[in-house]
C-alpha cells in the first residue's frame, strides 16, 4: 500500500464487524464476569434480550471507542460547561 511504513494501518473496528449474539444463554463469559440475569431472558424471542444494570455496567471500562457516526459535539451546541468559569466567562448569566 501507499501508507507510510511506520504508520500501522488501523485495524477495522471490531464493533463494525462483530455479529449480534443470537442466543444470550449460550454465551460463556470469562471468570469474574457476571452473566445477564437469566430470568430476564427466559422467553427471549427474535434476538431481543433484556439486561440488568450490573451486567451492563461491566462494559463501561471496556467500550471507549468514539462512535464513527458521532457528530462534532460543538456543532450541535453540545459542549461541556466548566462550572467554575460560568460566572466569569458567561458574564454571570449562568447564575
Amino acid at each position: 500500500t501507499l501508507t507510510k511504513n511506520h504508520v500501522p494501518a488501523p485495524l477495522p473496528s471490531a464493533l463494525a464487524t462483530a455479529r449480534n449474539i443470537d442466543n444470550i444463554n449460550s454465551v460463556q463469559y470469562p471468570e469474574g464476569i457476571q452473566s445477564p440475569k437469566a430470568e430476564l431472558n427466559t422467553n427471549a424471542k427474535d434476538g431481543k434480550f433484556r439486561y440488568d444494570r450490573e451486567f451492563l455496567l461491566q462494559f463501561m471500562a471496556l467500550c471507549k471507542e468514539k462512535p464513527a457516526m458521532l457528530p462534532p459535539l460543538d456543532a450541535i451546541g453540545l459542549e461541556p460547561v466548566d462550572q467554575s468559569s460560568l460566572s466569569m466567562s458567561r458574564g454571570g448569566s449562568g447564575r
Partner: protein
Amino acid sequence: QEIDMQAQAEGIRTVFNDPTNFNVKHPLYSSWTLWFDSPATKGRNLPQTPVSAFPQTPIPPTPGAAAAQGWMEDIKRVISFDSVEEFWGLYNNIVPPSQLPQKANYYLFKEGIIPAWEDEANKNGGKWSIQLPKDKNRGHVDKMWLYTMLAAIGETFDPSPPSEGGSAPQSLITGVIVSVRPQFYRLSIWTRLAPSQGEADGLKDRIENVGRHFKMSVLGFGEAQRLAGPLATEVEFLSHKDSEKKGKAAKKIII
C-alpha cells in the same frame, strides 16, 4: 458471511474475552436514538461542513408527528445505536448532565419515535417524572441519568409485558429524558399508554410498577420515602393529555 464462518471456527469472543478484537456484540431489545437541545442549538440551520455531515432530523413518519415539527425544529438528532457496546462508546464520549449548559435536554427514544407528544407512540401515553433541586443533586444526577438509561436500554422498567401474537412483546417505554434547568434537574420516563380513570385493566398496575422501579431501583429512594420540597417533586405520573390542559385539575399518580 466470512465473519460468521470465522466466528464459528474460532468461537465466540465477547468484549470481555478480547476488548479490541471481539467478534460478537450484545444486541439491545430495541434500537435507540439520542436527541439533544439547548439554547445554543436554537436556530442552527446546520448548513456547512462539518456540520452537514451529521444526520438531519428525519421527516416525521406520521401526520400526527407533522404537528410536532415546530417543537422538533431545535432538537438535534445526535446518534442511533442498537448494541450494548455501542451505547458505552457513546456514553464514554459525550457530556454528562452535570456539565450540560443551562436549559439543555437529552432525549433517549426508541428509534422511529420522536420525543414529542404528537408521535403515534406517545400520543396516548404519559410520563413518570421527578424534579430534583440542582444544588443538592449536582453530584448525583449523572449516576441517576446513567441508571435511567440503563434501565431503558436493558428493558427492565417494564419486565413482564404481555406477549402479542408470538413475537417479542412490546414494552410500555418509549423514551427517557433529562432536563437541566437553572434551579433543578428533571428526569422523565415516557410511556406508550396511560391508565384511564376508573378502569381496572391491569394497565395502572403495570404503569405503577414502572414508577416504583424508577423510584427505588434506579433513583435509589425508599418505597415510602417522601421527596417533595423546595424545587423538588415526588415521583409522579401524568398523562400527556392531562399535561396539555394546563390549569385544570391534573390526575397525577404518585409513587
